[in-house]
């Protein structure tokens, strides 16, 4: 099912080769679906965003200039599609607007100082642990969540993330740090609690 991303022929895609388009869909649908799911939080919306992403990619192949990689270009379309669906729910969401973010600035200084790194390995990714990890990402505001998902889950570089979102690298770095610190706080509550329970057992 998984295809290699590196040998997709743009030329063949532009010539309307359906087989090549199918290979493109197989190569990228996994990560793009995961991105949409993390941003939208439910499978039906993520499926819509994924479908629209490939329809738009196919329609606009002639505008792909190769200045960014095919992967970055597809992530950009998928992010826009997911954000469009999010805006239907909450019209005020604006990823590029840093004013709202600054006004909404929460204190990002750490407040949890529990060292939960010594838990047994099976605790971290237990069913409950995974739920805590997913819940913490869902609780991030969209402006931080999208940066975290692209950088730390999809493994894009800072530069690629900034290209996908049309943000400066400085803005990406700032949001990434805020996202990571907030996740650490939430996970410290959950895993700290696990640590306490274990020490009482």
């Amino acid at each position: 099912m998984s295809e290699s991303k590196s040998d997709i022929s743009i030329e063949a895609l532009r010539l309307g080769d359906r087989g090549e388009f199918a290979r493109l869909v197989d190569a990228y649908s996994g990560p793009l679906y995961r991105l949409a799911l993390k941003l939208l939080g439910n499978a039906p919306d993520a499926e819509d965003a994924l479908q629209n992403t490939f329809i738009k990619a196919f329609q606009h192949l002639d505008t792909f200039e190769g200045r960014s990689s095919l992967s970055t270009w597809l992530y950009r379309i998928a992010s826009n599609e997911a954000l469009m669906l999010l805006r239907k729910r909450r019209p005020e969401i604006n990823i590029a607007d840093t004013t709202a973010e600054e006004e909404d600035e929460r204190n990002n200084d750490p407040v949890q100082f529990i060292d939960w790194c010594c838990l047994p390995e099976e605790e971290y990714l237990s069913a409950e642990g995974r739920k805590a990890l997913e819940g913490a990402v869902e609780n991030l505001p969209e402006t931080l969540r999208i940066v975290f998902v692209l950088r730390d889950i999809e493994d894009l570089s800072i530069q690629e993330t900034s290209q996908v979102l049309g943000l400066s690298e400085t803005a990406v770095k700032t949001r990434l740090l805020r996202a990571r610190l907030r996740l650490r706080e939430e996970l410290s509550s959950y895993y700290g609690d696990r640590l306490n329970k274990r020490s009482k057992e």
Partner: protein
Amino acid sequence: MSAKEQSLTQCQSLLVFLSDYIDGTLSDELCQEINSHAAECEHCRIVVDTLRKTISLYHECADEQGEIPGEVRSKLFKSLNLQDYLEQ
């Protein structure tokens, strides 16, 4: 400025470098500064260790979740008129 206030200022000023420190993109000089501070400051050591663990847990989960579910793939291929290529 009291010793406690001074330490707090230092902790806060190191915070902005933590992502680069963990990603391995920080200069040697600043890495050294964070290492020395974390060796003395228990709170900062915990923040660094648990932040690193937080990121690594998400990386681990991401590695396991790369594939699209079969039924989602089928629906997608059909909606894009690619059903002829479903079996490949």
